């Protein structure tokens, strides 16, 4: 689980490259494919790849949570939304070239900016580092230092659930 085993040697390197490749493939399918269902499946693939990257980064726990929450819950919810609104059968208008151009331009611009930032910054590790990957520490932090944030997130989730139920239940007009 600790990063050192996965970061050295030939085999992990190959695995790493495969994971990154799969992630990008998933992202490309998620963004460019015209079938909405394939988009979601591509997203699932990309998210699973990111989960694997988390494992490479040393946190098996977060990787599993990623699989559980994103792939297991959010993607499935999207599939349900697709089934309920049936966009697959809707007519697919031709893509406008202007839109593709603006999108690609903006994407490349931000990519360039990001790469510039990444290479121009001198990244300094913190002077003193506590390297503790255990789940217990995360739990301790969640219930002590970050307990307010934790509670707020819980509240937000609750409100979101209620809101989702109310919004999707009303037929016709939402406002009274």
């Amino acid at each position, binding site marked *: 689980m600790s990063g050192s085993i996965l970061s050295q040697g030939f085999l992990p390197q190959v695995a790493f490259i495969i994971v990154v490749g799969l992630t990008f493939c998933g992202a490309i399918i998620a963004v460019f494919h015209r079938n909405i269902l394939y988009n979601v499946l591509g997203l699932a693939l990309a998210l699973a790849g990111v989960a694997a990257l988390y494992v490479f980064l040393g946190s098996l726990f977060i990787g599993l949570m990623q699989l559980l929450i994103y792939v297991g819950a959010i993607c499935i919810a999207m599939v349900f939304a697709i089934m309920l609104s049936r966009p697959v059968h809707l007519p697919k208008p031709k893509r406008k070239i202007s*839109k593709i151009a*603006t*999108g690609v*331009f*903006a994407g490349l*611009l*931000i990519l*360039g*900016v990001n790469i*510039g*930032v990444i290479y*121009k910054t001198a990244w300094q590790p913190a002077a003193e580092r506590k390297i503790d990957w255990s789940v217990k520490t995360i739990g301790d932090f969640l219930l002590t230092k970050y307990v307010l944030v934790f509670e707020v997130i819980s509240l937000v989730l609750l409100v979101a659930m209620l809101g989702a139920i109310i919004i999707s239940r009303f037929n016709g007009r939402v406002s009274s």
Partner: protein
Amino acid sequence: MFVKDPILLACTITVVLPFLSFLTIICYTRKWEKVSCSISIGAILISLICAIYLFIASRHFAEPLQYKLPWIISGKTIIPFGFLVDHLSMLMLVIVAVIASLVQIYSLGYMAGDPGFSRYYAFQSLFAWAMMTMTVAPSMIQFYIFWELVGLASYLLIGFYYEKWSASQAGKKAFVVTRIGDVGMFIGLVILLLFYGNLSIVGVNSAAVAKQIPAPLITISAILIFCGVIGKSAQFPLLTWLPDAMEGPTPVSALLHSATMVAAGVYMFARLFPFFSGSADALQFALLIGTITMVLSSTMAMVARDIKQVWAYSTVSQLGYMVMALGAGGYVSGMFHLTTHAGFKALLFLCSGVFIHHYHTNDFFVMSRQGARSLKVPMVCMTIGALALSGVFPFSGFFSKESIMVALASHPNKIWLAAGLFGEVLTAYYTFRLIFVMLFPKEMEETHHEEEHHEGEGILYWLMGWPLIILASVTCVLGFFEKQFEHYLLGDYILAHGVEHGAEAAHAGGHWLTITAISLVAIGVAVAWLEYGRKGASQEGFLSRMPAIEKLFARRWYMDHFYRWALDMIIYSGFTNIFTRNDRRVIDGGIDGLCRGTEGSGRIASFLQSNMVQYNIFVMVAILGFVALSFLG
């Protein structure tokens, strides 16, 4: 633990069984009336046996026996739950158990065929549980909790015929009015808790309280706690709820509103008697309240035409007597009057229950015209009860009132004694007014159903009859046990507290007092005989020649009017108005304003929506990117 200690076992059984019976009936057996009433009566009978065992077993206790389980522990304050077994609590426990079981048996006849039969028995069990647990409470907190539960049971039983508007109103009134007193009591208890740090009854009664709390605070808290007595025992400013409480079924009136629940206030007074006697001012206050109550309610009873109202007013006035006795320092006489009163007042109510059940009216003039005297058993029993109530010699009331008078006579201020003796005249007058009207009707209406009842209602009639006979015989003999009673009650009191008992000393020179009291009762009875009993009597009281006073008495000294007026002026047009406005203007207005603000700003912002989200994003991203690039470059 239970096996080794039979007293603990008996306490637990006594207290828990009625509660189990309540739960069972309310949850499972509401459909099966016979099962419900057997469960309830079985539970109360077993409780009664245990209570009698405890009563006998506690005879020789020198020290109160306490069983405590810590319930809430907060810092240094420990609030226990448990039992306090001493002479006073066991006496009260037996009174409650006896009256409750007799009333439940009686109710088999009275409530037969009522649609709420099971519900009735469930509430009876609830009441028995609350009252018994309150009686044996070792700390004032437990006492207070069950005090309120007793109030709840009372509310449920008064409003038993909830379809009837007046009954539900009366239940509400009883609940709210007693609550006023309870607030005072609670504040008093909190003061005690803050300054003494402990609410166990033995602790509060001990001499250590006086050392820890300054004397003015003792007086204040004692008077505040006495407010609870005022509410529960229907004393002077809050006495109007009790006559209204007669809307409930008659056995309920007998059980709660004459014999046991209203006596709970007096019981608390006696329970904390050593504490109260730590403050002479508080005792003086109690004496004053008791006297006012006694005189006022006696005058109200003189003009009432409803048989239950008469007994209700007389209950209030007898409670006034008890408070007077305790206020004058007559611990034993107060408790003795409580005991005898429980017996004969339950008897009176149960008798009137038979009449009401039979004639379907509450007006005793109408009853008498329809031939009430032909119901032999209740009539005889009621006369016995009435004799006891007015304090005629061989009956229990004579002895207890006599001892109250002795206690009052020992008080330095003789005005209380005069008031007490005056009250005796009034009591005798209004009691025998009712009895003579019932016995010697002015004109008889020929009633044809007179023969039916003896055969037709045989079992039910005797189900109601036997409790009457038991109570009547108790009333006849109880008075002669005054010495034993005093011995039993004082056994622990003198040993444990060593407080000087005033009534003892004055007992010797009290012969003239007895003679005065008897002659005054005789005067009262004679006046009643002249106006209602003798042949050709007008059956109109001397008060009818003074319409103003009669109206004053009949309207309860306009106390209800005053309360209604105060309620309208202060609560409705004062507080309610302010709160309503606050609600409408501030709260509703604020939320409406928020909504309108959100809606309006949403409308304004929606003009910015140009249906081209993605181009908007593009512009945003492009600007962001160029700014970042310029920083990088």
